[in-house]
């Protein structure tokens, strides 16, 4: 069994006639239910539900507070390599791009770790491009070992691995796996991933599940919104999250809603997601899966993020650099993977969270305990 079996059931599903059949009453029904099924979730993703955002927001806020309290967990991403063998047409690290390729040495990683942890950050997300040659297992394990000295929790966002490899990383101290399918639509998937190991749709689709089997405490999934028809894409993200949650009781599932920022990106997505739709998706997911984490990165600007605090976000990156070696060295920054639009420092993000009446949480988990 794979999540693919669930996906297949929707191969011939007519999303647009489903959306056309959604009534205001049907939307309202979903707001009072304790447990939402897949079709309730889809109802909340419908254009019709977009007319009821405020009502949905009230419920989403209540559920979020019920499950998470008024807290926002903080983490920082750390890019240690931008070598990549894939050609994803939407990404700055794409193999075909002529950019300055860098990979940090363990000493450099340590410098970055010092710089980040000195700002109070306790949860780190280790990122690489996707290149087994440039960043082999031994290197990754070394990097994790180094980061464990500086952070309470280490997560990874790297190329998909075999289950036994995830086990090694888990044993080395990795708590969380972040891995985005990017796009659930197979045809589009094939079109935007021109070359490299990433062309293997199924290998990627099952990777979060391999991570859950390997025993990671958190698995964070997502679709890069804009690549495929957005409502169905986010619908599948939600189903994927629930699939993992149902099957792996000891894994905490979280989602991200990364989207293209049209102003900052050379790539023009076919299905751009505007702010209102973005918020609708986030709210719908909160109702569908009240216990799940929702990670909001600095792809979203400060204005959006400050408002999302009240609507269901639970995890923010803060004081972010998305280029390799971006924290310790100030000159000579390499190309970022994506442009960040919330450039505030950790302190500024923390004070924004506090002034919104929420508590910023630096550390919500420590393996040592």
């Amino acid at each position, binding site marked *: 069994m794979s999540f693919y079996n669930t996906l297949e059931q929707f191969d011939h599903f007519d999303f647009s006639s489903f959306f056309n059949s959604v009534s205001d009453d049907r939307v309202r029904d979903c707001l009072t239910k304790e447990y939402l099924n897949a079709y309730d979730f889809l109802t909340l993703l419908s254009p019709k539900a977009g007319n009821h*955002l*405020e009502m949905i*927001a*009230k419920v989403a*806020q209540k559920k979020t507070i019920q499950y998470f309290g008024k807290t926002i967990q903080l983490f920082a991403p750390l890019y240690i390599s931008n070598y990549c063998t894939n050609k994803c047409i939407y990404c700055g690290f794409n193999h075909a791009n002529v950019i300055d390729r860098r990979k940090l040495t363990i000493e450099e990683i340590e410098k970055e770790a010092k710089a980040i942890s000195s700002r109070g950050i306790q949860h780190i997300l280790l990122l690489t491009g996707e290149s087994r040659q440039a960043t082999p297992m031994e290197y990754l394990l070394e990097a994790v070992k180094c980061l464990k000295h500086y952070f309470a929790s280490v997560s990874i966002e790297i190329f998909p691995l075999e289950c036994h490899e995830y086990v090694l990383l888990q044993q080395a101290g990795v708590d969380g796996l972040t891995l985005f399918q990017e796009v659930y639509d197979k045809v589009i998937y094939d079109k935007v991933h021109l070359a490299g190991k990433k062309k293997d749709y199924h290998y990627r689709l099952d990777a979060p599940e391999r991570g859950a089997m390997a025993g990671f405490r958190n698995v964070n999934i997502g679709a890069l919104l804009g690549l495929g028809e957005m409502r169905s894409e986010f619908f599948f993200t939600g189903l994927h999250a629930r699939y993992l949650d149902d099957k792996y009781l000891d894994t905490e599932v979280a989602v991200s809603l990364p989207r293209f920022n049209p102003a900052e990106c050379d790539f023009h997505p076919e299905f751009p997601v505007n*702010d*209102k739709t973005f*918020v609708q998706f986030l709210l719908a997911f909160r109702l569908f899966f009240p216990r799940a984490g929702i990670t909001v990165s600095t792809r979203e600007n400060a*204005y959006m993020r400050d*408002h999302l605090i*009240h*609507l269901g976000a639970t995890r923010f990156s803060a004081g972010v650099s998305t280029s390799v070696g971006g924290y310790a060295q100030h000159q000579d920054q390499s190309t970022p993977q994506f442009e960040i639009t919330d450039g505030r420092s950790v302190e500024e993000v923390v004070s924004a969270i506090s002034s*919104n*009446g929420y508590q910023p949480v630096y550390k919500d988990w420590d393996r040592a305990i």
Partner: protein
Amino acid sequence: MNDEGLRLGDTTFTNRLFTGTGKFASNEIIPEMLETSGSQMITVALRRIDMQSVTDNILQYIPDGVTLLPNTSGARTAEQAIRVARIAREAGCGKFIKIEVITDAKYLMPDNHETLRATETLAKDGFVVLPYVLPDLPLAKRLENAGAAAIMPLGAPIGTNRGLETKPLIAMLIENSAVPVIVDAGIGFPSQAAAAMEMGADAVLVNTAIATAEDPVAMGHAFSLAVQAGRAAYLAEAAGQSVVARASSPLTGFLD
């Protein structure tokens, strides 16, 4: 959030537990119970004298400073209730009146219709009217318009100790009433009183559960604590909600 007390007529009650004088093993317990519970309002009933035996004067057990709430128990029509109310006022019991009209001897359900009629007259007459009713939102609105000072919905039939059986209906009253909601009847345990206060009731009236406890004095104290706890919980929640309202009036307004 500070509790400013419950205002009924010209009187402010800082203690939100109202008590009753019925069913005590000995009336001598009443002043002590009032002391430990801190209750500031207590019900009394008016009856024809029993010529055969010496009747105890219940009023002598109620200290000054505790407001008397005569009830109209025994009345089966609005007219009878009105008469009892007037007699009570003439007899020096003050302006408060709990209208209790019961035509159903089996379940002792209040007769909402007669109660509304009595309320209309007595409110005009200058009484502080507290009608005891089966929770019914449209009726509550009518009582409000007729000048009721509060609505007293029952939690469960009188004396049953079954608690908040009418909870969802009472919740509607709390959400929509302009006047205070005082849960009366059916509350058998402090936890039920706390639950009523926690959901936003303005006060509870407890008689049987205190009067018939092994130790009514201690039970009065227990109820008082429960009412305070429930009220504090309600206010804590309300404070949280007001922060939200201040921070972001409509949650999605920022998208416009």
